[in-house]
């Protein structure tokens, strides 16, 4: 098993953070992992992305060129990474902010209204966790429990009180995927 994931959005959407969570969860499950941020001279509010590899083998290139999955939080990220996803791969689109459908018919595409769901949960900042929940439900790369175990490692013990909210966000994202799969089958 080797999952090569691109997570992209604009600065502030928490794309780096869910990348780190996923990486930590992989490590907790004794998988080989790497996390690499794009750190170019980006503008404030510009695009940000990170490459995550979770593998049962040693991680080769930490740079993800052809992702097996891409999580895109805004439209510029969809435009940039949609063509790169490998055939048979997965694409997770934040449909709250992206108004177009994917042009690919050779990959699994999931539309997740992450901002709307986060809004319903009362905290816009968990939109990234909704996307991550959708991703792990569809890919089964790591378990939801491992993500939660890594949560305080990434965000610090003083954020432990936010665990229930984040669990709910992950579960809502997972639900979107289950519903979408149920309607397509």
């Amino acid at each position, binding site marked *: 098993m080797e999952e090569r994931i691109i997570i992209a959005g604009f600065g502030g959407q928490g794309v780096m953070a869910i990348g780190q969570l996923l990486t930590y969860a992989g490590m907790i499950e004794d998988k080989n992992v790497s*996390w690499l941020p794009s750190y170019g001279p980006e503008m404030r509010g510009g695009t940000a992305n990170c490459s995550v590899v979770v593998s049962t083998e040693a991680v080769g*290139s930490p740079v993800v060129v052809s992702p097996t999955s891409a999580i895109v939080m805004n439209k510029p990220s969809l435009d940039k990474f949609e063509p790169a996803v490998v055939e048979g791969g997965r694409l997770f689109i934040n449909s709250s902010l992206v108004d177009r459908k994917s042009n690919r018919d050779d990959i699994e595409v999931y539309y997740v209204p992450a901002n709307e769901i986060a809004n319903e949960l009362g905290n816009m900042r968990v939109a990234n966790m909704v996307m991550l929940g959708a991703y792990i439900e569809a890919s089964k790369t790591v378990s939801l429990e491992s993500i939660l175990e890594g949560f305080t490692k990434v965000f610090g013990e003083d954020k432990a009180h936010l665990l229930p909210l984040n669990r709910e966000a992950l579960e809502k994202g997972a639900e979107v995927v289950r519903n979408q799969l149920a309607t397509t089958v």
Partner: protein
Amino acid sequence: MAKVLMKGNEAIGAAAIEAGCRYFFGYPITPQSELPEYMARELPKVGGVFLQAESEIAAINMVYGAAGAGARVMTSSSSPGISLKQEGISYIAGAELPCLIVNIMRGGPGLGSILPSQTDYFQATRGGGNGDYRLVVLAPSNVQELVDLVIEGFDIADQYRNPVMILGDGMIGQMMEPVELRKPKQRELPPKDWATDGTKDKRKPNIINSLYLAAEELEAHNQRLQEKYKKIMENEVKVESYNIEDADVVIAAYGTISRIAKTAISQLEKEGYKVGLIRPITLWPYPYDEFEKINDKCKGILTVEMNTGQMVDDVKIAVKGKFPVYFHGRTGGMVPTPDEIIDKVKKIYGGEI
């Protein structure tokens, strides 16, 4: 300790503190600034000193002073900052002082860019400062190895009274991987009886210096240095190699690029190609002898770097004209892809280049 997920730059700091380094002098520059940031936060907790100098030149001379007093000391920077440090590095090498210098390389020449590169290979292995001196240059390819080499690097520096450089690129500085701090192989380290740490009225003053005005004295000093370098060459070469006894093409790559080469190799193997790898871990001393083990039928060596071909000189020295040497490189922060490497290997196979 259990594994933790750490960014390369921060892992260097954790490893240095684990190795007993208590003094850091530096000046911020992307893409290594998380390292001084980490040291600023963590060194005071263990009774150490973090000092942001007024410039890189000041920082390396503070390292010179602390090393002369016998302290475990380090500095870090990125390419243009390391250029500024060259004078001090030459003095430290001349005065035979142990220290650790970290270069997390970015694009050049000049201010270049903040993106990853390997364009300081020449500077690191040939000496950017004046004089006949050598640094031990360690090139880690993942964050665990980075941590291991930082810890061992301090021991190597102390054993030989020589500056050691960690040569990484922006990618390894920025990426996160699981790490575990562990002890290196046990070395017998000589006492620092040369240090200027106070005579306590019990001995004559020690003098730290790189100035030898008398010709005979300086020549004798240089001969001593060369003998030391010979010992380092005999004892400290580190290299990883893969399938070179059987390969039709051998890739030579170091640091993070070797990982991209490995991805390319496993893809090529699935298609039936036999490709080997030589990954120098010490760039100086260079693992020239490893290339002797390459099988006679090998069609050529492909050197892959994030520069326009610097290590390719050492590969040519190593193969002594026995095999053709090819090169693939990207610059400016562009990272070679596995597909580019695969394409080049196939061309060598097909005799197209």
